[in-house]
Every structure is written in structure tokens, then in C-alpha cells.
């Protein structure tokens, strides 16, 4: 089974530039997540999609970050304009939400995109 794919793996930009990250989840997974992980910290959820719809984007800095999930499959996360503090690894994860609370909701993570803002 293919895992979660992300690209690019690395990106270096200057502040105030724009950047976009792409994620392809595991086939059949309805739920997709974007996380930001700053060095030395745990991942922080930015946005969660269930199919096409947004479940939670409460921690997404909406003045500069945007995300979409067209057709309920691939997703892109964009930062415009980037700030120095956006330097981090951006992780995409997906899960197959089987339904009842007795089901294990295991998230499968991609390798991440390491962003450096200079």
C-alpha cells in the first residue's frame, strides 16, 4: 500500500515570498490533516479536512495560510507571504475514519516538507 506522498521535500524561500505544498493521501482515506512542526516541538494541527469539507481550521493563520482539498483527494497548503517564523516541517497525514468511536483512528503521516524562510 502506497503511503502519504508530499512534495517538495525541501524548500528555501525568502521572507514575503509565497510557497505551496502538495499532499496525496492514501487511497480511500477520507480525512486529511496538515500539521506544522517547529524544530524541537510536537506537531501542531493547522487544518483537518473530511472529504472536501473543513472539520477544524482553528489554528490556521488565515491571514497568510490557505489550504484546499479539491475532489476530496489531493490537497495543497499555501503560505503567502511567508515570515521567518514559518520555518518548520509541514506534515500531511490521512486517516480512514471507519465510523463509530470503537474504531481506531490511525493517522498515516507523510515524510514532510522542510521549509526554510530566510
Amino acid at each position, binding site marked *: 500500500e502506497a503511503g*502519504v506522498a508530499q512534495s517538495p521535500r525541501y524548500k528555501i524561500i525568502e521572507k514575503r515570498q509565497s510557497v505551496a505544498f502538495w499532499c496525496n493521501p492514501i487511497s480511500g482515506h477520507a480525512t486529511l*490533516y496538515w*500539521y506544522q512542526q517547529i524544530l524541537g*516541538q*510536537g*506537531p*501542531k*494541527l493547522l487544518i*483537518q479536512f473530511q472529504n472536501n469539507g473543513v*472539520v*477544524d481550521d*482553528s489554528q490556521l493563520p488565515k491571514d497568510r495560510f490557505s489550504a484546499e482539498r479539491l475532489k476530496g483527494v489531493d490537497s495543497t497548503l499555501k503560505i503567502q507571504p511567508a515570515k521567518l517564523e514559518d520555518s518548520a516541517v509541514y*506534515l500531511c*497525514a490521512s486517516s480512514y*475514519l471507519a465510523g463509530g*468511536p470503537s*474504531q*481506531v*483512528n*490511525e*493517522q*498515516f*503521516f*507523510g*515524510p*514532510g516538507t522542510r521549509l526554510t524562510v530566510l
Partner: protein
Amino acid sequence: LAKTTQPISMDSYEGQEVNITCSHNNIATNDYITWYQQFPSQGPRFIIQGYKTKVTNEVASLFIPADRKSSTLSLPRVSLSDTAVYYCLVGDPLGGNMLTFGGGTRLMVKP
């Protein structure tokens, strides 16, 4: 949002059993407890999930007391390759609040 508290770091030796405890005093009725493992330069990897009592799989056991205000991840006979950061998450699998990672516990396994 249920907040979790874990030790920042732990040391162990190969072959020992390691127990990592997580405190979650304000866990809600619908919340489950999930543990993830993360190696450097990789995304987190699911280890185990439970609601109450004890859950065991091929790599770990999860102990949850009756009040569910804490949980303990048990790794039997650790090896050097178990050196990683371990995260405890608490939340509702059907909702959006499962996804708060704390600082995690850095486990160092020594030869």
C-alpha cells in the same frame, strides 16, 4: 481540548521494559488515548490507541486506570532502534480535537 503532560525525556538500556506515563486530567467522555512514535526527519507513526483498561498489540501495551486521568505506554524489551520521541494524544476520534500533540517524551535507549 484535553491537555496532556509527559516527561520531557527518559533514558533506558537495551532489553529493559520502558513505561512512559501521560497525564490528562480533563479527558472527556468521548476521548480516546493515542500514542505516536517519531524518529528524526520522519512523520509520527501510530503505536497504539485505547479507551479504558488495557490494550496490547505486537509492539506495545497501553494501561488506562478506571478514572482515565492518566495512561501508561509500556514498551517491552526496548532496543536501540526504539530511541525516538513518543507523543500522547487525547481526543475524540470523530471530532477535531484529537490532534493536539504535546512536547512528547524523548526516549534514549543505551547499549
